[in-house]
């Protein structure tokens, strides 16, 4: 047996490698930099890494390769777009995360213990959040570009593990936060077991673990369909879990609520991009020729997801939970883009993911600002009259909500329109109609929040709006500007996407 040294094509992997390097340096910083400097060093390092990585992505934007990392990674237009989206969202998320007030001073300390109090007083910070974030981001970057099952699985775990951890690091309501971590972890592991099991059957079906090999078998149609179907079903469970589609959604409201808000925003936005990115790649390339088998099931799930998310969101009293259900509904809309299985669907999905991600980070960033003496106030009843107290914050939040609701002149509308038209084009009319109807239902609760903020008198209960730190302010402003700009003049981005978004196989 002759061993040939692998050729990795590091240029194409460089965005991910940069992130990993940054994360490793971050770990070293934890070990060697003094406490006082750690926070600022980590932040600078993280942002620097992300920007560098983004620049690298931009540099390789026209690369087309299936052979990077010995065929484990495919770099093509959608890959670039998704990676860039993830990085942009990661950067603004990090701006919000940088406001360390959200994280526990000492994760190991018992909630309410002297040790914790002391840690808070001494200004201790869990700066490990930064490298963890970078690890998660590199997992997210890898997830949608993976082109074999092993890399896919490793990337899935790589993006999940840091998130499980970070979900438990909230400064306040720590029991809830830890509970969120536990739930996220158990269910995540549970679903990844399904994912793995599905992978096994895909392997059994095609005798290959690469996407290309599986695709060949699907196209050839010579294999054993039962294995393929089981494989598709179980792999889908894993992916649908990550995107929060019903009935695999149950973790998301609890985790969104319990996790530190900046993490929630980051997770809601970036994970969705990564997971949908992977999903798009798998369904558009690997399973495309087996559309007959998965399309009806996925349509059913999309429909249930949209309706469930919209209906349950109506009944929510907590802003984070409401946004969680809203994100479930959006997962349903995005599934319509997967079902579409055409070029328009791909373009639309990428646009939607980016637009939704930016708005989500912005919205959660605003949630971090509304506080009382005990921390963030997420009870919607206490958001009453926010418009009176701080009109700009309320107006910005309203802007995000309108974008979620898909009101014209916001990015949400263009996204919804493009994704529905793509789905309609592919014949999924039922999904489109349900989508439109559930948008109407969804509008109901977005508007309810706007009513609360603007048309209800404030209650004097100590709820106030924190003056945002500069970084948070930048994140919010960036988000709202992008949200509006993409609603008013999305042409450049759409053109960019459509020119680039072609999967190579």
């Amino acid at each position, binding site marked *: *047996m002759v061993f040939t040294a692998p050729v990795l094509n590091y240029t194409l992997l460089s965005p991910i490698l940069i992130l990993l390097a940054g994360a490793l340096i971050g770990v070293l910083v934890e070990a060697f930099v003094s406490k006082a400097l750690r926070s600022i060093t980590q932040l600078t390092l993280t942002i620097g890494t992300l920007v560098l990585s983004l620049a690298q992505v931009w540099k390789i934007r026209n690369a087309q390769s299936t052979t990077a990392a*010995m065929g484990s990674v495919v770099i093509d237009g959608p890959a670039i777009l998704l990676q860039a989206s993830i990085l942009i969202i990661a950067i603004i998320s990090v701006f919000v995360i940088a406001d360390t007030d959200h994280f526990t001073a*000492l994760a*190991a300390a018992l909630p309410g213990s002297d*040790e914790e109090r002391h840690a808070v007083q001494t200004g201790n910070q869990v700066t490990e959040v930064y490298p963890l974030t970078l690890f998660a981001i590199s997992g997210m970057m890898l997830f949608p570009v993976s082109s074999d099952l*092993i890399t896919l699985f490793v990337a899935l775990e790589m993006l999940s593990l840091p998130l499980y951890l970070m979900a438990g*690091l909230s400064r306040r309501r720590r029991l809830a936060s830890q509970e969120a971590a536990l739930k996220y972890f158990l269910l995540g592991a549970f679903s990844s077991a399904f994912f793995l099991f599905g992978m096994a059957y895909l392997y059994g079906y095609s005798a290959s673990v690469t996407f290309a090999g599986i695709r060949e078998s699907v196209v050839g149609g010579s294999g054993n369909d039962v294995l393929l179907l089981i494989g598709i079903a179980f792999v889908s469970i894993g992916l649908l879990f990550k995107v929060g589609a019903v009935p695999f959604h149950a973790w998301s409201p609890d985790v969104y609520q319990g996790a530190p808000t900046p993490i929630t925003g980051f997770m809601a936005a970036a994970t969705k991009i990564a997971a949908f990115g992977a999903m798009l790649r798998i369904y558009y390339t690997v399973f495309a020729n087996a559309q007959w088998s998965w399309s009806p099931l996925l349509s059913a799930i999309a429909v249930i997801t949209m309706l469930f998310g919209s209906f349950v969101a109506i009944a929510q009293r907590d802003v984070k939970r409401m946004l969680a259900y809203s994100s479930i509904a959006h997962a349903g809309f995005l599934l319509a883009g997967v079902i579409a299985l055409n070029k328009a669907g791909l373009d639309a999905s990428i646009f939607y993911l980016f637009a939704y991600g930016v708005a989500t980070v912005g919205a959660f960033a605003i949630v971090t600002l509304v506080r009382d003496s005990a921390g963030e106030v997420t009870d919607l009843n206490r958001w009453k009259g926010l418009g009176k107290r701080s009109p700009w914050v309320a107006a910005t939040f309203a802007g995000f909500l309108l974008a979620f609701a898909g009101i014209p002149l916001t990015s949400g509308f263009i996204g919804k329109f493009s994704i529905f038209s793509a789905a309609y084009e592919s014949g999924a009319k039922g999904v489109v109609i349900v989508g439109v109807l559930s948008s109407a239902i969804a509008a109901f609760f977005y508007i309810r929040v706007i009513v609360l903020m603007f048309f209800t008198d404030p209650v004097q209960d100590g709820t106030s709006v924190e003056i945002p730190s500069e970084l948070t302010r930048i994140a919010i402003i960036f988000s709202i500007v992008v949200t509006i700009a993409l609603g008013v003049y999305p042409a450049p981005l759409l053109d960019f996407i459509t020119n680039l978004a072609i999967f190579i196989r």
Partner: protein
Amino acid sequence: MNELALQVGQTAAPEAMLFWILAPLTLAAALGMLLVKKAVHSAILMAFVMVALAIFYIAQGAPFLGIVQIVVYTGAVMMLFLFILMLVGVDSSDSLTETIRGLRPIAITAAVGFGGLLVSLLGRASIGRGAVGIEAANSEGNVEGIAQLLFSTFVWPFEVVSALLITAALGAMVLAHHHRIQERPTQRQLSIDRFRGDSLATAAGLPAPGVFARHNAVDVPALLPDGSPAPASVNASLKARGDVLDSSHFELGTVDTSVEEEK
């Protein structure tokens, strides 16, 4: 070649025997995991299942995996589980009565449905008849074959996994590691504090816990000469855990014999 074809299609008789003996045992152990009350018993059964799987791996031409399974999984991972079980309380036992209404019937129905459907589907799939057999792939040695793949085709995920390991380590650190936020007081400092403090009452050291003859243990405050309990004699963390017994039970004359001694 005929022989090879036969081998490929049908597992050899010794393997069949192994399977039919071990598989039911494995299943039983797995089921046992669900049915036993104590978590530690579950863990033991789990270890059994893992070892059994390792044997199956070896039987199926994956000796490397079989070994790794035993070393890494059974050896390391299960040990970790047991460690944690010890930490959480090795005695703790689960009540098996279901508290969430309707969950058990759902679970059982789902399980039967899931397993039944899966097995039935596999039955329809008629797999394994045209099996190729691992022998050819293992021709240069199982470990060599795997190494070949691992360090060429799958070198990227292999490298990336390292990041995963670091993440895990970092995560465990974050959650479990107590930073030394303040200087640990030296003996000297403690001594100075004791004597320079407001009161000299504790200058000679804190009273020792326990009530002689009745309950000489650290979870009972000592009785002062006047018969009242001395709270300072018990460790603060025991108090925080709520594990302190009331020393009045052990006062002479008022011995409450109904309190069962813990073994």
